[in-house]
């Protein structure tokens, strides 16, 4: 297997575990699929398109949970620690790839596997122990109900190895809360309810230890590529600052630019911003810095609130915590944000969806749709920090109003009605991250057409946000969105971290990205060949959605972004009216060679990309 695989960087083997049959098997990775889909999101999409019948219940035993690495994992290439966990999402009802950093991905490769496919459902709680070649399904009855950190502690103790890396779910995953996440050591595969899929399989955790290595065809070439990338990470302006301030380095600048989403997106300027910036976080709670495997960016912060009502220890906070529980809920206390982050980790909840669900409930309360009777006595106003923390716990326990909010804003607003759908900030069921598109047309059409809905990893507003391209021009924005899709999906397949955006992108696949992939695999891709792989991957995912019944009508933005202009600040007046979005969609589909009526790839496009097998399903 390992040494004879055709392409460098791969192990050449997948591990498959059927929990219903308690069957563990190893199978070769298909060389042509590796070449055509690389790994991570792209390869998982191809596998799941092949193996999942359409329209299955995402929380039923037919769904499969795929942990997939990429060729760069486990090499010295920096920012390449990431891995993908993929399934049909119970939150968006289509293919979903949730990407995470840390050490789990490289460790899985060191154990001898490019990926792990989990299928079926165990008849009782279990965990997997992958110890190189030896793989066991172990009883996890004693772990059920425990939070992810406690679970990891117990598993490490019972295996007797502090160096193992562990993926685990919390109580939210066990309860199949549709936005439950998976915690991998300290890193989260946060979005899309992959934790609920894992919980539906009665799979509490996966522990892995590997002692092998990754083979590359030309070590000197990989070394030189890694050194050049490290140099670029250290000197590229938009990457600098991550080491000192982490991802919240942008909070103050975004507020100044009028693009810090606030009060459930009613506005984009937060008056309490000063207390929750990256600078304020560094000065108040950060005690250290952490990095993922072989990464020189060092973006993770280790923060401690040592005492008081918000006593907590977290890895973060990241920008999305500060956006979600800070400006969106109008809470300007960094210690509260640390506590909110810790609670989400302990319950195993995606913090973006949790925060946006609470903010939606706050707006319901503000508008009189909810009263104290609905909120279990909590005065759920914007800015009520303790009320917000109570609601996280209620969502985690699915108790009182928390049981409704645990369904997410799309479903909760459908149940509540009374116009609350208008301020449910979601697309395809998934709540919005902290990156606006109201002033940015390419970002808008990218979000609308993205397979995961509210994900800033299907599109990045950076080109328009930085002024690299003119945000006020509509022409060419469909093409820009498509090319940003391409560098993102290629990176999610190789797998490298999007925080290296200025180097990997930012407007199309960069030569640095191609160089890194070529160095590790031994391929000799030029731009056109790399772009074709990315286009194939994007179309593969679109085919999955189309087979599930998604069409052009599902490519939408939250009503607020189409109907309510930004009310103040430098971006005052910005929004994306419905007719503008439709025009942008036409532009995007045309550039992609997709059918304008359905928004699906055409026969010609699928043939061009070698995806003929999907023609019978969607054309």
């Amino acid at each position: 297997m390992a040494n004879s695989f055709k392409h460098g960087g791969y192990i050449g083997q997948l591990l498959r575990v059927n929990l219903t049959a308690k069957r563990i098997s190893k199978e070769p990775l298909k060389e042509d699929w590796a070449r055509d889909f690389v790994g991570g999101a792209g390869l998982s999409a191809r596998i799941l398109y092949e193996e999942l019948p359409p329209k299955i219940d995402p929380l039923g035993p037919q769904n499969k949970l795929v942990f997939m690495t990429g060729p760069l994992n486990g090499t010295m290439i920096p920012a390449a620690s990431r891995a993908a966990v993929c399934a049909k999402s119970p939150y968006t009802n289509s293919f979903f790839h949730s990407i995470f950093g840390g050490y789990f991905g490289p460790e899985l490769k060191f154990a001898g596997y490019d990926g792990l496919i989990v299928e079926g459902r165990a008849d009782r709680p279990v965990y997997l122990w992958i110890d190189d070649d030896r793989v066991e399904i172990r009883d996890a009855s004693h772990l059920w109900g425990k939070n992810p950190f406690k679970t990891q502690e117990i598993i490490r103790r019972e295996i007797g190895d502090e160096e193992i890396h562990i993926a685990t779910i919390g109580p939210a995953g066990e309860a199949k809360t549709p936005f439950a996440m998976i915690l991998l050591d300290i890193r989260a595969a946060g979005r899309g309810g992959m934790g609920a899929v894992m919980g539906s399989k009665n799979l509490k955790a996966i522990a892995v230890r590997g002692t092998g290595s990754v083979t590359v065809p030309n070590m000197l070439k990989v070394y030189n590529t890694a050194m050049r990338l490290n140099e670029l990470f250290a000197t590229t302006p938009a990457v600098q600052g991550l080491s000192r301030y982490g991802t919240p380095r942008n909070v103050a600048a975004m507020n100044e630019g009028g693009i810090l989403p606030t009060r459930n997106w009613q506005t984009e300027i937060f008056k309490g911003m000063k207390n929750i910036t990256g600078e304020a976080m560094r000065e108040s709670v950060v005690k250290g810095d952490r990095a993922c495997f072989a990464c020189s960016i060092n973006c993770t912060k280790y923060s401690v609130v040592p005492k008081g009502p918000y006593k907590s220890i977290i890895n973060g906070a990241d920008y999305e915590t500060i956006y979600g529980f800070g400006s969106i809920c109008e809470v300007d206390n960094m210690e509260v944000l640390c506590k909110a982050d810790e609670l989400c980790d302990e319950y195993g909840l995606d913090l973006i969806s949790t925060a946006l669900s609470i903010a939606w409930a706050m707006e319901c309360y503000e508008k009189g749709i909810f009263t104290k009777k609905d909120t279990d006595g909590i005065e759920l106003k914007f800015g009520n920090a303790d009320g917000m923390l109570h609601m996280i716990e209620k969502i985690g326990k699915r108790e009182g109003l928390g049981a409704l909010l645990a369904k997410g804003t799309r479903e909760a607003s459908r149940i509540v009605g009374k116009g609350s759908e208008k301020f449910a900030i979601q697309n395809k069921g998934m709540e919005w991250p902290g990156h606006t598109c109201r002033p940015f047309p390419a970002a808008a059409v990218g979000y609308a057409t993205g397979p995961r809905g509210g994900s800033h990893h299907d599109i990045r507003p950076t080109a328009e946000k930085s002024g690299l391209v003119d945000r006020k021009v509509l022409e060419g924005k469909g093409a820009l969105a498509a090319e940003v899709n391409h560098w993102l999906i290629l990176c999610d397949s190789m797998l490298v971290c999007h925080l290296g955006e200025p180097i990997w992108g930012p407007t199309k696949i960069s030569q640095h990205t191609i160089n890194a992939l070529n160095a590790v695999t031994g391929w000799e891709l030029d731009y056109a060949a790399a772009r074709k792989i990315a286009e194939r991957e994007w179309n593969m995912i679109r085919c999955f959605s189309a087979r599930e019944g998604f069409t052009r009508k599902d490519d939408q933005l939250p009503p607020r972004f189409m109907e309510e202009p930004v009310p103040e600040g430098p971006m005052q007046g910005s929004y994306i009216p419905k007719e503008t979005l439709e025009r942008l969609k036409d532009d995007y589909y045309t550039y992609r060679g997709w059918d304008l009526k359905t928004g699906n790839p055409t026969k010609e496009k699928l043939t061009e990309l070698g995806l003929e097998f999907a023609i019978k399903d969607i054309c």
Partner: protein
Amino acid sequence: MPVEATMAKVKVKTFSVIRDVLGAETIEVDVGRAQTVEGLFAALLERYGKPLKNLLLDPETGEMVPFLIALNKTLIRSTVDMNHTIKDGDEVAIIFPVGGG
């Protein structure tokens, strides 16, 4: 008879690592008679040298990287709008281009 331009002092607001180089969130910069945004940045690069160049110039091309500038709360672009005039008392904020986590 030509009217000679007067000297201009502007307030410059910065954040994160640029703030760290400048030493304060807001500083005052005398741009002399070079009364354009480009002149302001030339003055800043002159005053703060390599540490600021490392943050504003592309390491591969040496060109100014793209970012937004709030000139009296109106957003302009570093890539195309550097010839905007500035006058005494103006406020300039550097909105640096970064994505999120």
